[in-house]
């Protein structure tokens, strides 16, 4: 079945079986292996991407269901060599150990700040509660999102 999905602003067309999961469709697109696939039960959140701006678990959506929607993956965060504040925050606050959950965490955090630029720590924790960090580095992930929110606000004020 022919499927066309907009991934990071580019139209990607491919013939796939209806049973192909969106996460695999994305990962089989050359260069887009940033989205991780971590569990079979929709629990871990490593595969979170944005669908029309909202975070979703790409292991629980079929590629064929995504046609006509805008998908954004972790690769879309960096623009022209410039890190997204979320990425810079993860770097500054050491918000990853093994890094497996990081793409999902970052996309979830990006969506949170798009909707709520100044979240409380509780709101950050709630937002990322659909992601599991097996290194249990949640504290630094929350700090990273906080860092991103602060620096994003400061950058806006300067502009």
């Amino acid at each position, binding site marked *: 079945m022919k499927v066309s999905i907009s991934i990071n602003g580019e139209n990607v067309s491919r013939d796939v079986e*209806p*049973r192909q*999961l969106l996460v695999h469709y994305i990962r089989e697109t050359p260069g887009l292996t940033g989205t991780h696939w971590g569990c079979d039960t929709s629990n871990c*959140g490593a595969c979170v991407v944005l669908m029309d701006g909202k975070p*979703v678990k790409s292991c*629980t959506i079929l590629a064929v*269901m995504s046609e006509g929607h805008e998908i954004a993956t972790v690769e879309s965060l960096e623009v022209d060599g410039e890190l997204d504040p979320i990425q810079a925050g993860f770097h500054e606050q050491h918000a990853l150990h093994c890094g497996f959950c990081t793409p999902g965490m970052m996309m979830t955090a990006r969506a949170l700040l798009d909707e709520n630029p100044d979240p409380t720590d509780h709101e950050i924790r709630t937002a990322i509660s*659909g992601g599991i960090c097996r290194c249990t580095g949640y504290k630094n992930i929350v700090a990273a999102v906080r860092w991103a929110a602060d620096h994003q606000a400061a950058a806006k004020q300067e502009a």
Partner: protein
Amino acid sequence: MQTPASFEYERATSVDGVIAALKKRGSGARVIAGGHSLMPMMKLRLAKPEYLIDINDLTELSYIREEGEEIAIGALTRHVELLNSELLAEHFPLFRDAEQVIADPVVRNRGTIGGSLCQADAAEDLSAVCSAVKAKAVIRGADGERTVSMEEFHVGPYTTAVGAGDLLIEVRLPLRAGAGSAHEKVERRAGDWAIAAASAAVWMDGGKIAEAGIALSAVGLTTIHLSRAEQLLKGKAPTDELFVEAGEIASTDCSPSADGRGPVDYKRHLAGVLTGRALRRAVSRALHQEA
């Protein structure tokens, strides 16, 4: 890597189209809404539909609106929309109680009320919520539309009045004066299914409970409708002793099994305590004693 078994896929463009496709394809056909119950089951090969009908484009099934003496919720309305609805928060605050603790925010962006009710997992929070507020389910099939109560809707474990050729269209909640409601859940960790949960609704009249609705999640093979406790409360003034008594009925009338979430006696205890708490909160909300 777990991948579903092969199937054919169709994207529905109308409700009539879904009904026609279900009829044509027979029992191998299945509707997919948010997919957050069905996809994990398909990956584990617990479900192997031969033909999948995707209803996500049917935006006409996505709404929460007041219609006369009822609130109507379209089957494709997602958890996040139920969570954010001010209309529901005003009339039936138990929806927001439940939606804050159903799965996680990412799952809530996809999962729907229709999928939750049709899945009819005994641990489904919305099944208890809809039972407590005496909701009605509107089901459409090849022979037209019918409306059933939640008691009629819940047929058995994972089984509802929605047959193989049917589509759940909407859920209707009757608006009546003096209403208050609450949902209480205990889970092992953020985003998990309930160890036990209790939904309660009361309709107060002149300081007395004119009517009550109570249902439990995760403590039996199906959603438990606590009709004995509802009878007990009817016509009585709300007191702590009464709530405790209703809780005792809950502990007795549920039928939990032991699993990773806890042993039977603990779950029975929890069902009782949560029933009492939900009732207490429902009554204070009805009497506007809680902000």
